[in-house]
C-alpha cells in the first residue's frame, strides 16, 4: 500500500462478450454416393443442396444464401459457408437429403467451425510417426 497523492484513475477494465464468435459458419462435407464412379461438378452439387433445402424448408429455405468455397471433384469433398443463423437449416437439410438422380446418397459432415482456419487441420487425420 502506498500513499496516494491526488486523484488516481482506476485501471480501465473493459470486457467484450460476443455471443457469436463469427458471422459465418464453415462446414466441411463429403458426399457419399451409391456408385463409386459418379462425379458431380460444383454447380450440380449446389443445385442438389438447394433442392434438399427446398424440400424441407420450402421456397424460403431454398433462398438461404450459402456458398461452396472449395470443391474437390475427385474426392467429392467441399467446404460450405453459411451465415450462423442458417446453420441449423442447412445442416438439417443435408442430413435429410437422400437421393441424387434416383441414386442413394448421403452427406457426411466432417467438420464444422466458425473459423475457416480450423478446417485446415483435423486431429482425426493426424498421423504420428
Amino acid at each position, binding site marked *: 500500500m502506498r500513499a496516494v497523492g491526488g486523484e488516481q484513475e482506476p485501471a480501465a477494465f473493459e470486457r467484450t462478450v460476443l455471443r457469436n464468435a463469427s458471422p459465418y459458419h464453415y462446414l466441411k462435407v463429403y458426399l457419399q454416393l451409391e456408385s463409386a464412379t459418379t462425379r458431380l461438378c460444383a454447380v450440380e452439387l449446389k443445385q442438389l443442396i438447394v433442392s434438399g433445402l*427446398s*424440400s*424441407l*424448408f*420450402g*421456397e*424460403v*429455405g431454398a433462398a438461404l444464401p450459402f456458398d461452396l468455397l472449395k470443391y474437390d471433384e475427385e474426392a467429392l469433398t467441399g467446404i460450405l459457408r453459411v451465415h450462423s443463423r442458417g446453420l441449423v437449416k442447412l445442416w438439417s437439410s443435408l442430413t435429410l437429403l437422400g437421393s441424387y438422380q434416383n441414386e442413394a446418397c448421403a452427406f457426411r459432415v466432417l467438420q464444422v467451425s466458425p473459423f475457416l482456419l480450423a478446417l485446415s487441420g483435423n486431429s482425426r487425420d493426424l498421423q504420428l510417426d
Partner: protein
Amino acid sequence: MVRQKSRYLLCELNVSDRSRLLLLDDRAVREAVRATVARIHGDYGAALCSLRFSVKYLNAHTGIVFLRCPKNCYRLIWSALPFITSVENQGQKVPCFLNCLHVGGTIRTCQKFLIRYNTQQLHRMLPQCKSEEEKLQVRKAILNCSLIKRNEGGFEDEAESGEDDEE
C-alpha cells in the same frame, strides 16, 4: 399443463367478383392456406403449422376470416398469406388475396377490433353516398340491426348487415 396459447389472424378475403365470394367455405380456405404454407415453408413449416391450425370463422358476405394458429409459428403462416393467389372450391378456382388486418390472442379481442374497424369503414364510406336517399337507407338499415340473442356472435350479425347494406 398450463394453457396452450394460440394466435388468431383476422384476415380479409378480397375477390374481384363479389358473387363468387359466396362460393367459398372454410374447408376451401383451410386447404388453400395449408397448401401455400407447404409450398413456401416446406415440410418443416407444413408440419409445424398444422398442429392447431383451423379456420374459426368465415363470413362469405364480407369476406372476413379468422385463422387460428399456434403461438410459436403464427409468423410462418402470416408470411405465407401474401402468396395465396386463389382458393379452390369444388373444382372452381376463385382468384383472391388475403390481407391480414389484426393479430389477436383470443377471438374476443379480434371481434372487438372487427367492430371498431367496421365502424371506421362506415364513417369513411358514408360521406361517399351519392344521394340523400342512400344515406337515409343506410341509416335505417343500421338502426334496424338488433342483437339477436344467440349463443355466440350476436354482434357479428350487426357488423355484417351494417357492412352489407352500404354496398
